[in-house]
């Protein structure tokens, strides 16, 4: 079937992954594939552990069960130094940007280069300026992170994430809290970096519109399970009611508007008790 083809060509393969935080089961038996050179999106409501999934892929968290394979190596079996070597080839864009606050834009982008390479300062300068040019912020190189708008901070973080020319890049909620123009800029950047650098891209997002516009393949996740998967158009026309509700953003459906409670009438009648 198509499935075996996909797993052969996938850079990241998640198999039977389970993870819980305390009593909370975040994932149970999740399997996913992320194809080389493609944009794969993970979508789902807030609080379903999409960010956790990225941290599991990056080896920052240990799963209870299952494996995550990145470029042929099992992330959670790697020794620390091997894991660090793998991470040098993975860029990650955090929701907040995660820029280092005590350095200006230039030094932030130069940070991974200075930490991991012995390049002369003149070459670092050219590399940094090229990366900043790619995100359109070459002119902002002397600004401090607290002088940047949220969208600009994310673009700087993006320049930093591609500083070491990684093989793949993970975006954690890149569109959240951005104005329409910034969203447009980010959508354009993610797409163009994917094409020009051949980056395997993983996007975690709940912004249906922006994500469907650029993704090649989408996983819809909720309650620790994959609720649906497919190309954007397949997902749009999914037979699953749940996926339909999520994509259309309707208020009531399989996901109820009301938090589980007893009947309103009973609650109102039982006065005297506080709960």
């Amino acid at each position, binding site marked *: 079937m198509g499935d075996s083809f996909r797993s052969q060509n996938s850079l990241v393969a998640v198999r039977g992954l389970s993870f819980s935080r305390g009593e909370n089961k975040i994932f149970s038996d999740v399997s996913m594939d992320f194809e080389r050179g493609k944009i794969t999106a993970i979508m789902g409501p807030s609080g379903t552990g999409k960010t956790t999934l990225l941290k599991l892929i*990056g080896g920052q968290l240990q799963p209870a069960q299952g494996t995550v394979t990145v470029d042929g190596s099992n992330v959670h079996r790697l020794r620390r130094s091997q894991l660090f070597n793998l991470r040098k080839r993975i860029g*990650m864009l955090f929701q907040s940007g*995660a820029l280092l*606050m005590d350095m200006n834009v230039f030094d932030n982008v130069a940070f*991974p280069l200075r*930490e991991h390479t012995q390049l002369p300062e003149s070459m670092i300068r050219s590399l940094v300026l090229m990366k900043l040019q790619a995100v359109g912020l070459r002119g902002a190189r002397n600004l401090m992170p607290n002088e940047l708008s949220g969208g600009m901070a994310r673009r700087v*973080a993006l320049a930093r994430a591609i500083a070491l020319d990684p093989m793949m890049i993970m975006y954690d909620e890149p569109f959240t809290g951005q104005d329409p123009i910034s969203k447009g800029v980010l959508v354009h950047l993610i797409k163009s970096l994917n094409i020009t650098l051949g980056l395997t891209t993983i996007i975690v997002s709940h912004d249906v519109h922006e994500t469907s516009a650029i993704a090649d393949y989408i996983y819809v996740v909720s309650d620790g399970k994959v609720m649906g998967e497919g190309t954007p158009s397949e997902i749009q026309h999914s037979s699953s009611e749940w996926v339909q509700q999520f994509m259309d953003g309707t208020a009531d459906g399989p996901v109820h508007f009301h938090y589980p409670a007893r009947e309103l009438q009973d609650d109102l009648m039982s006065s005297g008790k506080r709960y």
Partner: protein
Amino acid sequence: MMEFFQTLGRNTRSSFTKLGRATFFLLHTLTGIIGLLPRPRLLINQLYSVGVLSFLIISISGLFVGMVLGLQGYYILSDFGAEETLGVMVAASLVRELGPVVAALLFAGRAGSALTAEIGLMKATEQLSGMEMMAVDPIKRIISPRFLAGLISMPLLAGLFSAIGILGGQLVGSGLLGVDDGAYWSQMHAKIDFYDDIVNGCIKSLVFGFVATWIALFEGYDAIPTSEGVSRATTRTVVNSAFSILGLDFILTALMFGDD
């Protein structure tokens, strides 16, 4: 009643867990110090924010503490006709106790809380996580230089505190109250022992610097990554540092000056 013991047990267990985490954190930090050798720039930057920025508050406090000691000491000693020993009193109390202890308390309040807030904020804004994903070990890159800077700064600050305090005591004692200047110094000279007093004072301040910096960095690193979590961690840093410094001071004093 049962509930009480359950809570007690849970709290005891969680504080041991925390101590265990803190110990691993410390070991990790210490291994990172070796990596600083080829990169002195990281240490210098931290010496600035840990040491230089505490310099002013330490010197001014030292001056006032010394002046107060000079004044109080004079009133007490003059009752016994022993004003000449003012220098000994001021110097001994500063070098043995007040220098290391007060400087460490001020250090915990000034530099320690700033370190906790800084590290906690870095955690809350995912900077530490981000570094990890860039294959940079945040403990080695961020924590180790700060730890070493605290360790180096503390004895220097305590020494400054004592030295300025002794000068302040002299300013009040011989400048204002008319104690003989020569007696102030010569009595001090005769009575303050280099090994017993100065070296022991330095050891104390090293220990305090070690503990205060460790607490500050660990609380920041272990903080719940929200604004509330960071502000709580900052408070804990100051409270825990103060307890540890004063408790350790008692133990160290008993060990050092016990068998006189």
